[in-house]
């Protein structure tokens, strides 16, 4: 297996406690099984949340700031789309069919699965050192010079080095950490802040955000940020080599140098 760099260098041969010698061709996995499984469950959940969330927004495509907001209040902004409710003045002469029933069921079910999967991932990541080893940036990479080079490489669409097939670069690490520890918690928090039952038990969930409508507006923008991440993520996977990256996240194995692209 041709591999450059020191990162992720696999053991050529290993001796198990049972005394058996594994052949030298033992494949080191690029992504552990837990990372792969949680990645794809999260992907499914995110797509379900995105579609159902969009359907729910269509029933009231107006956003407000503060505690309350309705068709009699001035919105912060409106989405230029038709609505599934006749009550909302949209400027369109028609009303879309109501899809909120299944959308809401699906939204909360997918949210539960996503949250439980995320918890499993974070506990696993802390326990096995996955977060520290694979996601925490190297101190040296955080210098201004190294960081600018990494950004420039991305802006010039430079093909990633062989080492990067085995390890995340500093931009990936920072982005993934942002998604896992800022955007996901924020979208969960603002979602819970819209629950009348949950906030009755924990009022700070909504008061810290400045009100239920503020929570809804922030929820919308965090969701947009996550959508932006998804799009950039997919584009970067394509640029880096769709087949090898997909194979790494599905089977765990990455291609060798010759197999790449």
């Amino acid at each position: 297996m041709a591999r450059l760099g020191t990162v992720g260098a696999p053991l050529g041969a290993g001796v198990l406690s049972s005394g058996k010698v594994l052949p030298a061709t033992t494949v080191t996995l690029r992504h552990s099984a837990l990372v792969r499984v949680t990645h794809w469950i999260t992907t499914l959940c995110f797509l379900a949340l995105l579609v159902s969330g969009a359907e729910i927004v269509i029933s009231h495509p107006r956003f407000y700031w503060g505690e309350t907001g309705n068709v009699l209040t001035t919105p912060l902004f409106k989405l230029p789309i038709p609505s599934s409710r006749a009550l909302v003045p949209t400027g369109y002469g028609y009303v879309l069919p109501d899809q909120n029933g299944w959308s809401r069921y699906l939204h909360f079910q997918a949210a539960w699965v996503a949250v439980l999967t995320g918890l499993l991932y974070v506990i696993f990541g802390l326990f096995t050192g996955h977060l520290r080893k694979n996601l925490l940036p190297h101190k040296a990479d955080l210098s201004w010079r190294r960081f600018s080079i990494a950004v420039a490489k991305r802006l010039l669409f430079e093909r990633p080095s062989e080492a990067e097939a085995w390890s995340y670069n500093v931009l990936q690490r920072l982005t993934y950490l942002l998604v896992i520890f800022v955007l996901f918690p924020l979208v969960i928090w603002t979602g819970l802040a819209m629950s009348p039952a949950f906030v009755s038990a924990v009022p700070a969930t909504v008061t810290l955000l400045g009100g239920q409508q503020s929570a809804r507006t922030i929820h919308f923008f965090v969701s947009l940020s996550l959508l932006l991440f998804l799009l950039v993520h997919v584009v970067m996977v394509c640029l880096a080599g769709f087949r090898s990256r997909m194979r790494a996240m599905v089977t765990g194995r990455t291609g060798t140098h010759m197999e790449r692209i």
Partner: protein
Amino acid sequence: MSDLSRRKLIITGLAATAGAAGLGVAARIAQKYGLVPPDHRGIYGLGETLTYASQRLLTRHSLAREFPRSQISNPPLANEIPPLNEAFKRLQAGGFADWRLSVSGMVDRPAAFSLAELKSYPSRSQITQLACEEGWSYIAEWIGVPLSHILNVVGIHPQARYIVYFSIDPNWWESIDMADAMHPQTFLAYGMNGNELPVGNGGPLRLRLPRQLGYKSVKYITHLTVTDSLKGFGKGLGSASPEGGYAWYAGI
């Protein structure tokens, strides 16, 4: 088969068995303590049960947020309402003098209350938010009699588990569990912002349930019944909402 993969297989098998057994036990405990919603079947049953069970454990006695008078939405919003039927119009023409709230089911003293009788009981008010599943919301002062007061007047049987309540519109009915029914902020509301409850907001009588979405706060209530099972009502899913595709529990 090598030792390693056999060990893996045994461990996986044991884990799966333990997991399945654990889920079975969890389901039985949840059923026993009333943590399973009536619309728990179907592909979305898991999410609904998780939401209902966790919120029942977390929010049984918690109070919905109340607001200062200065935060009351002005003007108050009256959402779209279905066309009101002949029965409603007749009662409206008579100034709602003949409006009755009948209470039946597992009670010691079935009764029918006029609005005047309901108003003769100690009146309470709350300034709470009404949030619609669509995303909009408003804050109003709601005046009425706590549902628990009426339930105490009629005397409910100890095996009572749900209150089913009906609008004068025959397609509109809902139900709540006893935790919500006996909750101090669950009102039979007949007033709003210091006045009679306007027809647009559900007058002369609506249920107010501030810890759940607006659609559970049924307008134009004429009847409620106390029961230990929701099986005999409609399709047995708990209320008209799941029959129309919406969740029975709307605490989110």
